[in-house]
C-alpha cells in the first residue's frame, strides 16, 4: 500500500474522530444547556436584595444651626438637596458633598419659618409655615444632554410651586395635610389644637352657563373616635382621608363631595389599643400603611362585607421594628413600603410581605429619602452625617408565597390564587401566582388523558393482538401519520368547528356518550348469539373493528337526531341554561370537553404507537403457550401479554402525558385562556404553556414577568423531563429484556 496514502487516510481518520467527538459532545452538551440557561434567566427572581453605601460625608455648609426638615435627590444619585426650618433649599453634589446652589422658600405672606414638611409623590413637598399657611412645592430634576459637549449628561434642577393655601383664621394648627390633584382640586385638612379636624376644599365647577367657577367650602369633620388623633394622611387625589388615634383606631372619611364630607368608618384596628404613630398610602392609594408604637407595620384596605359594608381590613403584616415607628412612606414605583423607626430604615414589599433591605448606620438616622426609581436612598443622621446608598432590589414582588400560595391582592375580598400580570396603569399590583396555571395544565391534561388513554391502549391491544396482519400494516402507519398532524390544525378545528358544534348539540353529545356503549354492548351480544348459527361460525376473525365502525356511526347519528328532543324534554330546551340555573355552572363554549377531544386526539397516536410496539414485541412463544393451555384469546392478552408489555404501555402513557402537559397551540386556541381554578368540565383554563405564548411578547426583558415566564418554562421542562425520563428508563429496560430496538 502506498505509504503516502496510508498516512493520508490515517490523518483523515484522526481528524474525523476529533471533529465527530468534539461536534457530537458539543451538540449534546449545548442541548443540555437549555435547562441551565432558562434557569439562569429565572434565577434572579430569588436573589436577595442588597444595599451598598455609595457616598458619605458631613452635611455641607450647615452653619446656621437651623434644623433640617427634609431631604431628597435625583434618580441618578447625583444631586441632592436638604430643606431646613428656615425654608432654605440647599442643593449639593451627592458624590463629594460640595454645595451647588441654594433656593429660598417663602410663604405667601412672606414668612421664612417652617413648622413641618411632608413629602409625597414625585418630590412634592407640603410646607407648613409658622403663620399657618401651607404651600405645595415640587422639586424637579431633569436630565440635560449637552450637544456641544459630546452629549454629556447633566442633571438640572428647578423648583415649582404647585399650590398655596392661605392661613386659617384660627391660627396655626397642630397638623396639616394638603394635596392638589390633576384637576386643581385643592384639599387641606387641619388638626386643630382642640383635637377637631377641619377640611377646606377648593374645586373648579362648571356652572350652568359653561363658565368655570371656583367653589370653596370648609367643614368640621365628624369624629366619633375615642382616642386622640395622632396622625393622618390624605390620598393624592384628595378624596380619601385616613387618621389614626392613640387608642388604635383608624378613621376614614370620603371627601369627594365638596358639600358633605363623610365619615365612612371608625375601625378599632388593634384590640390592644396601641397607639397608631404613622399612616401613609401605598403607591396607587388603595392600601393604607399603618405603623404603631410597638413597631408593628401593617397594611389595610377596605373590604366589602355583606353585613357591615366597606370595612378596613388587615391585609398584610410586614416585618416591623423593635421601636415605635416614626414614619412610613410608599416607594414611588411599586408596592413597597419604607418604614422608619429610631433603629433605622427598612423597606418591605407589601404583596410578597418580603423584608427587602434595612439601612442601619451606627449613628441614629433622623431623615431619609428614596429615589423615584427606588434604587437609591439617602440618609441623614442626627450628627449631620449624610450617606447615600445604592439599593439593588431586583424582584421585590416575587416570593415563594406569591408564586404558589394564596395572596390577598388589592381590591380582592379574600386571599386568592390569581394570575393577572399587568393592567393599564403603573400602580397595578401584578398577580403572578403560578398555581392557577399549573392547575390549568393538570386539568386539561387530565381530561385529555381520560379520553385518550383507553382509546389508545385498547386500540393498540386490538391492533397488535387481534387484527389481521394485513390491517396492522395499514393501521399502524396510519396512526403514526396521525401523530404528524400539526397541533395548530387540531386546535383550529377544535375551536372553530368542534366548539360551536358541541355548543349547539350538547344534548346529543351527552346522549351519544350513553348510546355508543349501549349500542356496542347490544350489537356484541347479538353477534355472539348469531355466531352460534352454522354459516356465521366460519366468518373470519380479525375484522371486528371494521364491523363495529358502522354501529358507532349509527349510534352517533341516532344521538344527533334524538339529542335536541331530549334536551327539550328534560332540560326545558336548553341544557346550557339549565346548567347555569340548576347547577350553577356557566357553560363556556371553549371548555374542557373540547380540550379532551382535541388534545386527546393529539396524544392518542403517541400512546398508541409506543403501546403497540411494546405489545408486539412480547415474544410470540408466550402467546402460543397460553393459547395452547386453552385460554381464550382475550384471556391470553389480559393475563399474559398485557402484564409483559405493561412497562411499555406505562411508558407510552407517560410520554403522552408529557406531550399533553406541554401542548401549546391547542390549548391556546381551544380554551378561553382564563386563569381560573375550577374543576368544572364546562369551563376553560389557562395552562402554563399557553400562558407563555400569550404573555411573553408583552413582557419587558429582564422584568419580573419575563423571569416568571422563564420560571414557568423551567417548571414545564422539569415536569416533562421527569415524566419522560421515567418512561425512557422503563422503555430501555423493556428493550433490554426483549432485545429489539
Amino acid at each position, binding site marked *: 500500500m502506498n505509504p503516502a496514502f496510508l498516512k493520508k*487516510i*490515517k490523518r*483523515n481518520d484522526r481528524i*474525523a*474522530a476529533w471533529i*465527530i467527538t468534539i*461536534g*457530537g*459532545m458539543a*451538540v*449534546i452538551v449545548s*442541548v443540555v444547556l*437549555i435547562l441551565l*440557561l432558562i434557569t439562569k434567566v429565572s434565577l434572579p427572581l430569588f436573589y436577595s436584595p442588597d444595599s451598598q453605601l455609595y457616598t458619605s460625608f458631613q452635611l455641607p455648609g450647615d452653619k446656621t444651626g437651623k434644623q433640617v426638615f427634609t431631604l431628597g435627590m435625583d434618580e441618578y444619585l447625583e444631586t441632592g438637596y436638604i430643606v431646613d426650618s428656615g425654608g432654605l433649599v440647599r442643593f449639593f453634589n451627592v458624590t463629594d458633598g460640595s454645595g451647588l446652589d441654594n433656593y429660598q422658600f417663602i410663604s405667601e405672606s412672606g414668612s421664612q419659618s417652617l413648622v413641618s414638611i411632608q413629602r409625597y409623590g414625585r418630590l412634592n413637598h407640603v410646607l407648613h409655615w409658622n403663620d399657618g399657611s401651607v404651600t405645595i412645592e415640587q422639586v424637579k430634576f431633569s436630565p440635560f444632554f449637552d450637544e456641544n459637549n459630546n452629549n454629556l449628561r447633566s442633571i438640572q434642577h428647578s423648583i415649582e410651586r404647585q399650590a398655596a393655601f392661605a392661613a386659617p383664621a384660627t391660627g396655626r394648627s397642630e397638623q396639616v395635610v394638603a394635596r392638589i390633584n390633576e384637576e386643581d382640586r385643592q384639599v387641606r385638612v387641619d388638626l386643630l389644637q382642640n383635637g377637631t379636624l377641619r377640611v377646606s376644599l377648593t374645586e373648579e365647577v362648571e356652572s350652568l352657563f359653561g363658565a368655570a367657577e371656583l367653589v370653596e367650602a370648609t367643614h368640621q369633620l365628624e369624629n366619633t373616635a375615642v382616642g386622640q388623633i395622632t396622625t393622618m394622611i390624605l390620598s393624592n387625589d384628595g378624596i380619601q382621608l385616613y387618621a389614626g388615634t392613640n387608642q388604635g383606631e383608624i378613621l376614614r372619611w370620603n371627601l369627594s363631595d365638596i358639600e358633605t364630607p363623610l365619615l365612612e368608618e371608625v375601625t378599632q384596628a388593634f384590640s390592644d389599643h396601641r397607639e397608631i404613630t404613622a399612616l401613609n398610602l401605598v403607591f396607587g392609594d388603595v392600601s393604607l400603611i399603618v405603623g404603631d408604637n410597638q413597631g408593628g407595620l401593617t397594611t389595610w384596605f377596605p373590604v366589602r362585607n355583606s353585613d357591615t359594608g366597606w370595612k378596613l381590613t388587615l391585609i398584610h403584616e410586614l416585618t416591623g421594628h423593635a421601636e415605635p415607628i416614626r414614619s412610613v412612606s410608599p416607594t414611588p414605583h411599586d408596592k413597597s413600603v419604607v418604614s422608619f423607626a429610631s433603629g433605622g430604615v427598612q423597606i418591605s414589599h407589601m404583596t410578597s410581605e418580603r423584608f427587602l433591605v434595612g439601612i442601619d448606620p451606627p449613628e441614629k438616622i433622623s431623615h431619609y429619602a428614596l429615589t423615584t426609581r427606588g434604587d437609591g436612598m439617602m440618609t441623614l443622621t442626627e450628627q449631620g452625617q449624610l450617606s447615600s446608598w445604592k439599593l439593588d432590589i431586583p424582584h421585590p414582588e416575587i416570593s415563594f408565597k406569591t408564586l404558589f400560595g394564596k395572596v390577598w391582592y388589592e381590591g380582592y375580598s379574600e386571599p386568592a390564587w390569581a394570575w393577572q400580570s399587568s393592567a393599564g396603569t403603573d400602580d397595578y399590583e401584578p398577580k403572578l401566582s403560578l398555581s392557577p396555571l399549573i392547575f390549568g395544565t393538570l386539568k386539561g391534561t387530565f381530561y385529555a388523558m381520560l379520553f385518550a388513554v383507553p382509546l389508545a*391502549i*385498547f*386500540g393498540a*391491544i386490538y391492533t397488535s393482538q387481534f387484527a389481521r396482519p394485513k390491517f396492522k400494516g395499514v393501521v399502524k*402507519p*396510519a*396512526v*403514526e*401519520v*396521525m*401523530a*404528524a398532524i*400539526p397541533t*395548530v*390544525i*387540531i386546535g*383550529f378545528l377544535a*375551536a372553530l*368547528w368542534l366548539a360551536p358544534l358541541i355548543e349547539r348539540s350538547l344534548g346529543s353529545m351527552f346522549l351519544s356518550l350513553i348510546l355508543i356503549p349501549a349500542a356496542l354492548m347490544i350489537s*356484541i351480544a347479538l353477534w*355472539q348469539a348469531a355466531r352460534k348459527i352454522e354459516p356465521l361460525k366460519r366468518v373470519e376473525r380479525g375484522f*371486528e*373493528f*371494521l364491523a*363495529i365502525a358502522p354501529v*358507532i*356511526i349509527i349510534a352517533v347519528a341516532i344521538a344527533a337526531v334524538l339529542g*335536541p328532543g331530549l334536551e327539550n324534554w328534560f332540560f326545558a330546551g336548553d341544557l346550557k341554561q339549565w346548567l347555569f340555573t340548576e347547577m350553577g355552572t356557566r357553560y363556556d363554549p371553549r371548555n374542557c370537553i373540547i380540550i379532551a*377531544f382535541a388534545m386527546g*386526539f393529539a396524544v392518542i397516536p403517541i400512546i398508541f404507537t409506543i403501546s403497540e410496539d411494546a405489545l408486539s414485541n412480547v415474544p410470540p412463544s408466550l402467546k402460543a403457550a397460553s393459547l395452547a393451555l386453552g385460554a*381464550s384469546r*382475550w*384471556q391470553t392478552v389480559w393475563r399474559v401479554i398485557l402484564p409483559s408489555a405493561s412497562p411499555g404501555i406505562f411508558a407510552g402513557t407517560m410520554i403522552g402525558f*408529557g406531550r399533553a402537559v*406541554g401542548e*401549546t*397551540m391547542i390549548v391556546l*386556541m381551544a380554551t378561553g385562556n382564563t386563569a381560573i381554578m375550577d374543576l368544572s368540565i364546562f369551563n376553560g383554563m389557562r395552562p402554563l404553556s399557553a400562558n407563555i405564548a400569550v404573555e411573553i*411578547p408583552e413582557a419587558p426583558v429582564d422584568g419580573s414577568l419575563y423571569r416568571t*415566564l*422563564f420560571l414557568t*418554562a423551567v417548571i*414545564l421542562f422539569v415536569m*416533562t423531563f421527569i415524566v419522560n425520563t421515567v418512561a*425512557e428508563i422503563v422503555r430501555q429496560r423493556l428493550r433490554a429484556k426483549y432485545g429489539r*430496538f
Partner: protein
Amino acid sequence: MTKMKYMNRYWRVGEPMVWLSGAALAVTLLTAIVLLAVIMMNGLGVFWPSELQELRLKDGSQVVGKLIRSEPTSDNSGLRRQYKIANRDLYGLDFRWIDEDQIVSEQTPDQLLVLERVEHGDFYGVLKGLDAGTGNALSATVDDLSEALGMVESELGQLSELEDKLKAASYRIEQIRLKTLKLDFQNVAENDPDRQKLNDEKQVFSQKFGNLVELQTKRTEKARQARAIFVAANGQESEIVLADIFQVYAPNQMSISDKVVFYLKKLAELFVGEPRESNTEGGLFPAIFGTVMLIFVMSLFSFPLGVVAAIYLREYAKDGILVRIVRIAVNNLAGIPSIVYGIFGLGFFIYGIGHGIDSFFFPERLPTPTFGTGGLLWASLTLALLTVPVVIVSTEEALGAIPREMREGSYALGSTKFQTLVRILLPMASPGIMTGLILAMARAAGEVAPLMITGVVKLAPALPIDGNFPFFHLDRKFMHLGFHIYDIGFQSPNVEAAKPMVFVTTLLLVLIVLIMSSVAIHLRNKMKKRYTFGTF
C-alpha cells in the same frame, strides 16, 4: 343459576372485550377520518364558483347569495340556510341566515356577477353602467366591462413596475441612512469625503424617489378614473373603481369545464399570489415561501448536527453509563414542550446572541435592533434545536440496526474507522437518516408555538430572499403557514369571512405534513424490513 354461569363465562372468555378494543380502534380511526373529512369538505370547495341564487323573501326583499349550508332552526320547526351575501361595504356582514319558510322563490339569473375586489371582499350584483373616466356612466355589457378591465390591468401593470422601482429607491435611501448613522457613530467629521459622497447619493436618490412618487400619483389617478356602476340585490347602486376589481365572473353562466378552469386558476393564484384583506383573501405565496425557507435553514443546522451527534454516540463514544444517560437525555429532549424551546430561543438567541451581534456589529443602529429581534435565523435555530433530537434518535437507530459484521468486514480489509463510516455505515443508514430528517421537517412545518415568539409575523413586509445584497436576509421576519392559520382564524376581525381561507391553508398544510411523514414512515418500515428479514 346456569344463566349466571353462562354470563360469567361470557365475560371470562372475554370475546366482548375483543370487540370493545376493536371499537376503541374504530373510534380512533373514525375521529381521524372525520378530521380529514372536515378539512377536505371545507377546504376543497372554497374556490369552486358555485352559482348565485336570487331569493325573494316574504317581506318582499331580495337577497343574492351563495348557499353555504343549511341546518335545522333552533326550535326545530324547519330548516334555515346560511348564505354568503358579500357586499360587506353595503350590508356590513358577509353572511346571513335565512329561514326556509321565509323564501318565496329562488332563481339563478344569468346576469348576476361576482366581483373580487381589492378591498371589502366580494361584490354580488348586476352591471348597470360603465364610466370610462368621463364622468357620465353609459350602459354597458359584461364584455365592455372585461375590455375596460383589460385596459385598466395593463395600466396597473405599469404601476407595479413603478412600485418596484420605488421600492428599490427607498431601499437605497435606507442603506444610505444606515451608513450615515454608522459615520455618526464613529464621529466622522462633517466634511469627510465619505459623508459628502453619501449625502450626494442621498440627494440623487431622494430626488429620484420624489419624481417616482409624483409619477405614481399621477398614473394612479389616471388608472382610477374608470369606474363601473353595479346594482346590489337590495337595489342599492354602488360605484366601483375598476382598478379595485381583481376579477369578474358570472358563475351562473359558467359551464362545468369553465368552472374547472376557474378553480385551477384560483389554485394557482393561491400558490403564487400575495395575500389581501389582512390575509383572508388572495394567495399564500409569502407564507409558503417563509415555511420552505424556515424548513430549509433549519435543516442546514439540525441535519449535520444531529447526524454528527448520533455518529458520536453510536460509533465513537465509549459505551458506558454516561452514554446511557446522554441517550436518555436526548430521547427526553424530543419530549420537551416546544414552547420551552421557543422561550429558550427568545432568551438565548434573540436577547443573548442577537443583542451581542447588534452591539458589536451594528451599534450605530441601536436601539433599533437588527438581529436582536425575532427573525428567520433565530426561528430556524430554535426549530433546529427542537428537531435535533428527532434526527439523533433516528440516525442512531439506523446505525444501531446495521449488523456488527458489516463493520468487522470493513475493518478486516484494512479500512479506517472513518472510511468504514463513510463507505459502509452512512450509505446503509441513509434511509433511516432521511426518515429522521423528513420527520424533523414535517414537525418544523407544523410547529407554531415557538415561532410565535421567535420571529413569525402576520404580514412580512419583504421576503427573506430578494435582489438586494446580500440576497439572503436571515434577520428578516417571515410568514408561516401554521401561524397563518392561527392568525387569520383567531386574530382577524371577521372570523366568518376568514374561515374559507383558514380551511384552505389548513388543507395545504395537512397535505404537506401528511405526505412528508407518510414518505418518512414508509422509508423507515422498508428499512426495518430489510434488517429484520434480511438476506443473511
